Each structure stands twice: as structure tokens, then as C-alpha cells.
């Protein structure tokens, strides 16, 4: 049995200046400067999710799975464009390392000290339901005590917080009804419901 312990955490920080770095992330702005925008969004959303769960990464095995997001594809194009513009002899390693779908997750794991599974697993037909199903199976298999399911778009990221046990029934039902939506779309839908209520 798995469930969402909290609906989601949504974040869209650019933090190009020190003032914009959320206090709970606790590092100087230079630490985040090397990251792509997508990675910063994912990191912020994951940080909020871990904070809100009350879990301590050093005492809880937390895994990361992601879906969606073409952020790494833009990073790939940026790396190769830079390489071409500089004579096609030497690429920049600091751009190359962000060309994988899991690059952002790697940074999240390092920044938050997360030690569980880490993979991109995109189910094109049912991105949200796919994330939840994959995370749920990992929890049942004992791969981690908590799974963060991250979906990031160009300007925002959503982090679903999955754990074993009872959770928020309405959110589970919403996902069951709307598994074909991606988590960002699902956020909008739930916000509309809250507003109407």
C-alpha cells in the first residue's frame, strides 16, 4: 500500500540572486549557479517535500524518480551548441554533465543527501499515474522508505511525496481519475477544486 503523504510541492524559483535562495536550502547562491534552471526547480520542490514530510534524509532512505521535462534536452542542445561554436574540438564538461535526464536528480540527491534509487521513468500515456505506480512498487519492494516523484516543466517543478501507509484519499482518487495528466496539470486541477470548494 502506498499513498501520497502530502498533495504535492510545487516550486518555480530562478534564484539568480542571493536574496531569492530559499532559506531552508541553506547554501550560498553560487552553489546553485552551476545548475540548470530545471535542476534548481526540481531541487526546490524536493526540498519542500522533504521538509514537509518531517523526514530526515540521514535517517530515512529516500529515492528519486522523475518524468516529463525537456529541461535536460535543452541542456543537451546548449552543450552541443557551445561545443560547435568553439570549434568542435573540446566540449565543456560542466555543461556535458547536465545532458542526462537524471542529471537534476543527481544534484537533488547530493544537496539533500538522498541515498535511495534514482531514475527517470516516463510513462508517456499516464505520466502521473506512472510515477505513482513506479514509486509505489519501489516502496513495496523495500527499495526505499520514501519516494519523491519529480515532474519538472520549463518553469516549475512538482514533487509528489510517496510513502507506505494511508495518505490523502482525495489526492489518490484525483490521480486515479486523471492519471493521463502530468503532475503540473494535476496541480492546476486540484487548485481549481480547492477554489471552487
Amino acid at each position, binding site marked *: 500500500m502506498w499513498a501520497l503523504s502530502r498533495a504535492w510541492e510545487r516550486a518555480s524559483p530562478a534564484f539568480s540572486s542571493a536574496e531569492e535562495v530559499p532559506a531552508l536550502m541553506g547554501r550560498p547562491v553560487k552553489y546553485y549557479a552551476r545548475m540548470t534552471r530545471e535542476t534548481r526547480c526540481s531541487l526546490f520542490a524536493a526540498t519542500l517535500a522533504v521538509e514537509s514530510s518531517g523526514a530526515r534524509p540521514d535517517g530515512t532512505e529516500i*529515492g528519486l524518480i522523475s518524468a516529463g521535462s525537456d529541461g535536460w*534536452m535543452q541542456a*543537451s542542445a546548449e552543450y*552541443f551548441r557551445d561545443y560547435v561554436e568553439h570549434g*568542435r574540438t573540446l566540449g565543456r564538461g560542466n555543461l556535458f554533465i547536465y545532458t*542526462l535526464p537524471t542529471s537534476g536528480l543527481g544534484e537533488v540527491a547530493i544537496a539533500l543527501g538522498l*541515498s*535511495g534509487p534514482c531514475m*527517470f521513468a516516463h510513462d*508517456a500515456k499516464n505520466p502521473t499515474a506512472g510515477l505513482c505506480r513506479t514509486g509505489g512498487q519501489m516502496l513495496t519492494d523495500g527499495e526505499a522508505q520514501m519516494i519523491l516523484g519529480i515532474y519538472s516543466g520549463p518553469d516549475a517543478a512538482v514533487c509528489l511525496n510517496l510513502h507506505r501507509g494511508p495518505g490523502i484519499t482525495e489526492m489518490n482518487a484525483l490521480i486515479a481519475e486523471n492519471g493521463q495528466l502530468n503532475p503540473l496539470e494535476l496541480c492546476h486541477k486540484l487548485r481549481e477544486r480547492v477554489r471552487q470548494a
Partner: protein
Amino acid sequence: MNAVISQSDVVTAYGWGLDALWNGLMSGKTAIAPTQRFAERGFISDQAAIIEDLSPEPNESRVMAMLRRLLTPILGTLDPATPLILASTVGEIEFIERAVLENNSAMLTEARPQALVQRVRQMLGLRGEAIALSSACASSAAALTRAASMIQHGEAPAVLVVTCDAISEFVYGGFSSLMSLSPRAARPFDAGRDGLTLGEAAAWALVTTRREGISILGWGNTTDAVHMTAPDRNAGGLTRAIDKALAMSRKKHNDICLIAAHGTGTVYSDAMEMVAFQRGFQSSVPVFSVKGGVGHTLAAAGLVQILVAGRAISSGHAPPTVGLGNVDAGAAGWARNAPADLGTTRVALSTNSGFGGVNTALVLGAAVDA
């Protein structure tokens, strides 16, 4: 419920099929050779393990050309509801290159692994779940853990795992910039090892509940949370992955007769793996890496070495680590440059690691252990 790799196929620079791969490794000769593909680029190496007899059609990527030929024999043989997991590092990288070189941003959409998995799904006539999976150089190993999990959860009676990665200027230039490439063919676990050699490969595995094949007995996926590209020198993440895989399989270290290592040939990655092995195992176990023969095939690396490990435990013989001359002190008694007899035990461990600090370990059994 047991998850078993009951059917599979592979192509590497040794040729098409597992026999070509197995015989190539057992011969001790490498398929790595100098390539002229990037000769004018001034990279730090000209070595690569390339599939020579590959003829992509116009507008077709090398990845898709590999898969088209490799998957043709199973067209129409699978239940259309079979879920598909496609493991690649990025997708069809040549389309990213073309998007930049031809200033055609629409091409980026074609490059995504989500697009590739749909192409493969369509080619095979599948209508079930289709998952694009990436976990850096542990991608296909991680995909197998997901397939085994889906089988054990009763989600489907069979799951098809397909993996592929090709050598591209994009990747070659990237590893060159990280100073990771050896100027000669990679020599995993050698005292003089000085980097990896890139290779290209594609493979598929049908994971089912049948009794014949390579049993997936347990697995572990972990993250180092230490560095984006360098391994954790204490091997904490890999050690945990191995321990998890053994615990899930209800096997102990001394049940393992063979280790299929990631064995890239880089100084720190190989050393990290040996730290993990020596920490857990009371005495040495035969360790092999395929990367001195077929290069580092990135996303495909895990499945390629697992198919070799499966052949090894069914035949009772471990292949040599091709390119190994003067074995590193840390791997002495473990890695060998000649085939080894495995005795009567039929349980193997396979490990992979990758960028972002990912680690995957699988415990594998022969059919008799299923």
C-alpha cells in the same frame, strides 16, 4: 513470483548475437579499434568499439538502425499488451546534433527517449505501457529491476526491456572534455589503466515468469549523493546496492560465484568497485568486465554484461577481462585475463554505476536456481 530473462538478443562491436559477444570475449581479443569518425576533432583518443556493418536509412539514427535489425526477428511474436521499457541515456543523440547543426529546434522533440520508445513500440506493434527509462550508465540494469518488479507485482506476464546507445560526436566530445577516455583500448582492473573506451550496443530481454533463462533473484538501486561524475571512493552507495540485492534474493556473499562488474577502466571507478567487493566478500570471487572488449556501451552496458553473466553461469565458465595485462593490486585474485572455472555454484552478481552517483546491483541465477 520469479522474474526470468527467457529470451534475449544483443549486438556489440563483436557482431550480432550473444555467441559473437561470448566468443569474442573468450578469445581475449578486443573489438576496440582506432576510428576515423572524429579524426579531425582533436579528441584525446581515437579508440572506439563500433558496429561496422550498420546502414542507417536516410533520416534514421544509428540507434534506430541497430534496433530495427535486432528486433526484426521478434516482430509479431509478442502479445501486443506486453509493456515496453526502453533504456537509453538520452535517446537519439544524432537528432540533438542535427537540431544544433541545422538550427532546427523541432528536431529536439525527435531526440527525446519518449519519442524513441514510441517508435520502438510502433515497430513492434505493442499497445501496452511504454516507459522511457534512464539512469545514466546503469540504465538497462535499472530497467531490468523495474521489469522484474512489474512481473512480481503481477502487472503483466511479460515485460520487454530494450536498450541501446550509439557512439556520437556529442558523447565522444563530452567524455573527451572530462578527460575520461583512454588513448588506447580500455584495460579494466589493470594497474596501468588510464580511462574508458566508448562502445555502441543494443540489446533486448523479455522478462517473464518462465522457468528457463536468467533468473533475476534480487536487486538494489542506490545513489552515492557525493559527486555528479566521480564515484564515492568509500563505495558506500554500491555497497548498499549489493547488500540490498543479496537481501532481496535471500542469498549471502558466499553464494556468489561470479561478479559481472561495471569495470570501465577509469582509475577511480574500478578502484571503487573493488572496495565494495572486498568489503563484502570474505574471499575472492572471479570478476570480469566486458568493457575491454566492447567498450563502455553506456545505457546498454548493464544488459550486455548480464547476458554474458547468464551465459557464464549456465556454462560454468567466466570470461576473461579483455585487455587486462598487469592486474591492479586491488583486484589481484579477482579480475583475470583468462577464463575461470566457476565450479558448481550458479549465482552471479552484476553491478553498474553512473553519473549522478547512481548504482544498480542484481543477483542472477541460472535456470536450475529459478
